[in-house]
């Protein structure tokens, strides 16, 4: 049908490039109530019962160019279409696990704008023909989400039942197969791929797992259309993105910006560097280190960061001060990532453990063998059922490159760090 090509939302004339889109303009007011949410965004659009309307909406999400905001940046419309086309009745799981200790954007979104995420979960369920939406959230934000769901129930607002669960507090718990395993069996560990969860997930049903921020964007695209969404961001990576900015900036926090914004401008949203910086860790603990002055000029997008070996990932920017030891920070995170292995795949369990020990030796100025380290990095890379070891290897390899001068200094007993390690948050390890 020809009219499907023209966006019916184009005439809406909304001030499109306005930010923030997802978060309330003012912080600290607590979660937006259902009334406040409706006043700002309008009612939940009605989804037609027939497949035609659903297909057109999925196509509109495709035209918007929305991609997953949980780290992998997979095209959302493609995942929706796959699950919608499945023979069995699918299930939708909204992923608010956010097991990454440095990241806060999903928690902040759920705590401040829970209704936008719940709208997205309900709409996604309707779009793929699911009869329930399961929302898995970090324990820290269970209460505001429960309150929001209760408020919607009283108002008879949701057309699909919504169930809220508390996520497992583990780094790998947010990986799609681990999330399905957690919801289905109470085990927060990845399962072997194939099958993918979109084909055979919860209870054997095709399962749509979407990050909560992705769903919040989806709820706005269904309301305002693709052109509105594309009025921010770049042509190949449209829309806005939530970024957690931590480390040596004046006002660490969660900020929303258009994809492709210069990385230095994203730091400026957080008040800019508080002290001279050495490097940025971009994307998360499975992201990549980039030297600071070079990183600031790069657009915060996959295309903009790719030449520097990085990607926006789950939207993390950590600013490393010049007087901290990058190797010590990396060793701490490596040890954490090793401990957070689900413990299922040998190369991940033994590889990450050995690599962390070697990095600790390097950071402490003890004798270390860079050849051995490189050999183990190669043997851990790509050898797990999930991408946990690959992400750790990527981050550590980038550290060895960016902090190469420090590595040489440490071998001679020198360290330029004059402040204790601890820029990157690492939770204490629970005994297992």
């Amino acid at each position: 049908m020809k009219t499907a090509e023209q966006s019916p939302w184009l005439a809406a004339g909304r001030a499109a490039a306005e930010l923030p889109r997802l978060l309330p303009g003012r912080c600290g007011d607590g979660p937006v109530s259902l009334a406040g949410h409706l006043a700002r965004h309008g009612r939940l659009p009605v989804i037609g019962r027939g497949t035609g309307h659903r297909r057109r909406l999925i196509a509109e999400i495709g035209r918007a160019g929305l991609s997953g905001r949980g780290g992998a940046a997979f095209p959302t419309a493609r995942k929706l279409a796959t699950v919608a086309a499945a023979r069995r009745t699918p299930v939708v799981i909204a992923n608010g696990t956010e097991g990454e200790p440095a990241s806060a954007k999903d928690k902040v979104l759920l705590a401040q704008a829970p209704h936008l995420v719940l709208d997205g979960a309900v709409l996604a369920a309707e779009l793929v023909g699911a009869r329930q939406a399961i929302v898995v959230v970090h324990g820290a934000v269970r209460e505001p989400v429960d309150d929001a769901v209760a408020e919607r129930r009283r108002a008879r607002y949701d057309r699909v039942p919504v169930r809220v669960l508390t996520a497992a507090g583990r780094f790998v718990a947010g990986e799609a197969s681990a999330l399905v395993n957690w919801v289905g069996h109470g085990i927060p560990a990845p399962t072997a791929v194939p099958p993918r969860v979109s084909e055979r997930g919860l209870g054997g049903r095709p399962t749509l797992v979407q990050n909560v921020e992705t769903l919040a964007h989806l709820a706005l695209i269904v309301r305002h259309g693709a052109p509105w969404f594309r009025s921010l961001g770049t042509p190949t990576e449209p829309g806005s993105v939530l970024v957690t900015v931590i480390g040596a900036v004046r006002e660490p926090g969660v900020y929303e910006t258009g994809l492709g914004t210069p990385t230095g401008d994203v730091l400026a949203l957080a008040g800019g560097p508080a002290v001279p910086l050495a490097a940025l860790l971009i994307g998360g603990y499975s992201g990549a280190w980039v030297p600071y002055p070079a990183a600031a000029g790069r657009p915060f997008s996959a295309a903009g960061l790719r030449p520097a070996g990085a990607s926006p990932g789950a939207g993390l920017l950590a600013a490393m001060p010049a007087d901290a030891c990058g190797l010590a920070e990396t060793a701490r995170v490596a040890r954490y990532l090793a401990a957070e292995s689900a413990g299922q795949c040998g190369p991940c369990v033994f590889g990450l453990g050995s690599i962390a020990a070697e990095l600790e030796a390097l950071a402490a100025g003890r004798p270390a063998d860079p050849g051995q380290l490189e050999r183990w990095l190669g043997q851990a890379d790509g050898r797990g059922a999930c991408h946990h070891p690959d992400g750790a290897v990527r981050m550590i390899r980038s550290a060895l490159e960016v902090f190469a001068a420090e590595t040489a200094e440490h071998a001679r007993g020198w360290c330029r760090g004059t402040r204790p390690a601890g820029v990157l948050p690492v939770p204490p390890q629970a005994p297992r």
Partner: protein
Amino acid sequence: MSARLRVDPIACEARGLCAEILPEMITLDDWGYPLIGGADVPADLYAEASEAVRLCPRLALRLDGPDREPPAPLAS
């Protein structure tokens, strides 16, 4: 008839039989887990590859056709 060897890293427990049966294609890493190159199994090694699959005590090894889907994304 081209096929590739795949290991299920969750099921694998580093028993190492596969590397004994098919040393031409499988070596072991520093912890005893099989390293399998991405190359297709050549026709003259197909019988040994099938044997390695059949004898794996953990049933962690399999022979896949070449048209397997790429791995799923890490997160959503």
